[in-house]
């Protein structure tokens, strides 16, 4: 029973990590505001279901759509900024979401949060979601989308010289990431059954980024592995749970210095024998 819980939580967080993989791992966009999308997804689904009585699948769909639309609206002005500024602006936006959720207490329950959601989300849905998201991510990575992401990350200017519309591409990446992240938030709401505005702050967003780096920027499997280890570790070793973050930090610093491809850099989803020629 306990192990089930651990698996559920670990998998939920892994969805969030996968959510930023395309954006941060492949394209090099750092956002400290992903927590905002988690919250938005969670609250959208919860409000749609609880306050408007719409069926659960629709609530999930709403969360995804709102996530994507918000990603578009946020991305349009901010993705023209340089990397550091984008990082900070997204932090600001995350904070704005938090403040907004607190302020709109009539709708969201304010600081008290929202509770009472039925447990609609169990392990099958979570794991199934991971499979689907991984498939989509992998498909994108293998084709033009992924190549262009990596090119943009490596050298934006050269990428545009090769005919890539860098701005448009970044917007697409951001929208997809936001949609996945919001979806993860919605799942969270109906699994953990309690949400509040401080659910996912900038530190948690930072952790997602860090785990992505540890797992390996070019390896989806690596990122999943790193996420699984980190989040389950915390559940199993609750008593030193707090030291987990310190340990993570030390590991990350070392990994970046000595093994910048990531701890699991060689890991790939399909064993090399199964891979087609030319990837």
């Amino acid at each position, binding site marked *: 029973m306990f192990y089930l819980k651990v698996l559920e939580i670990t998998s939920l967080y892994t969805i969030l990590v996968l959510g930023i993989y395309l954006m941060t791992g492949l394209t090099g966009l*750092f956002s400290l505001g992903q927590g905002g999308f988690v919250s938005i997804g969670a609250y959208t689904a919860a409000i749609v279901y609880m306050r408007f009585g719409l069926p659960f699948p629709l609530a999930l769909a709403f969360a995804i759509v709102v996530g994507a639309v918000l990603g578009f609206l946020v991305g349009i002005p901010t993705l023209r900024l340089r990397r550091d500024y984008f990082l900070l602006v997204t932090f600001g936006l995350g904070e704005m979401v938090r*403040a907004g959720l607190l302020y709109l207490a009539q709708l969201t329950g304010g600081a008290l949060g929202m509770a009472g959601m039925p447990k609609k989300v169990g392990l099958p849905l979570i794991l199934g979601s991971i499979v689907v998201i991984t498939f989509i991510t992998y498909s994108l990575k293998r084709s033009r989308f992924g190549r262009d992401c990596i090119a943009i990350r490596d050298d*934006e200017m050269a990428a545009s010289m090769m005919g890539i519309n860098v701005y448009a591409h970044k917007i697409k990446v951001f929208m997809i990431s936001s949609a996945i992240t919001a979806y993860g938030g919605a799942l969270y709401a109906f699994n953990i059954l309690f949400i509040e505005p401080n659910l996912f702050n900038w530190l948690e967003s930072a*952790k997602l*980024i860090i785990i992505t780096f540890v797992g390996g920027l070019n390896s989806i499997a690596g990122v999943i592995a790193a996420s699984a280890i980190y989040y389950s570790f915390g559940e199993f070793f609750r008593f030193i749970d707090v*030291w987990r973050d310190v340990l993570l*930090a030390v590991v990350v*610093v070392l990994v*970046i*210095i000595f093994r910048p491809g990531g701890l699991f850099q060689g890991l790939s989803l399909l064993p090399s024998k199964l891979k087609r020629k030319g990837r």
Partner: protein
Amino acid sequence: MNWNILLQQIVNGISLGGVYALMAVGFGLIFNVLKFSNFSHGGVVTLTAYIGFFLSKYLIANFIVTFVLTAAAGGMAAVVIERLVFRPIRRKGYPISMLIVNSITVAMLVQQFFAVTLGANYYSYPNFIKETALHLGNLTVSKIYLLMLGISAVVLGALTYVIRKTKIGIAIRAVSSDISTPSLMGVNVDFVISVAFFFSGVLGGITGYLLGMTFTVDPFIGSMILKGIIASIIGGMGSILGGVIAGLLLGAAESLLIAEIGAALTPMVIYGSIILLLLVRPQGIAGKITEVKA
């Protein structure tokens, strides 16, 4: 509108703004030299806030001594961080994103470390100043706030002098504009970078001390760095004067807004304005746009 209250808010805000300015400059210094956003500065602020507390509580209850020691500790911490965490990355020629990620990690490390070890307690600096307020006409100004403002002004003035007139200051500026050429002229670039980090760390130490003195010391005090970073961006990354002006403005604006519309909405207005500003003028108030060389 009650002008007295308004003025009061502004004065309070400007004093806090002085600290924001300190943070902005400390952050901007590294941005100039190594061209990346050094989030570990927040970690230095947190660390020194604690150090300052322990020094003044358990060692010597003298303001000046503990202040100087804390500032020095900040400088050394920053140098150590540079040596251990940033230099290896620089040496191996990794992309800047790695530096950013590692700097965030260090900030997280410091915060979580203190959350784990000392987080449960709230620490307050001993009171150095009798009579906490000063009365100027109709205004009541907290002495602590005045002190913050005064120290910030002095420190920033000194820094400006060092950067403009001393040899090391010129060296720092040289490395800022081009990281490889100065070494061809016999400048030890690594040393200059260490010095820049030392200065930045001293600023961080002063910030940590002042913040710890004004508010209580907790592991999240370093998160204030984000305000400093915001000030740095508004002012134009890399411009000391811009950072100062922006810091003061931010402090005053924040203070006014909280009084007028409350602490809940204030972040929204501030962040919203900053986003608008960046969209219209991405280089901030005093910064320059750099074009990428092909």
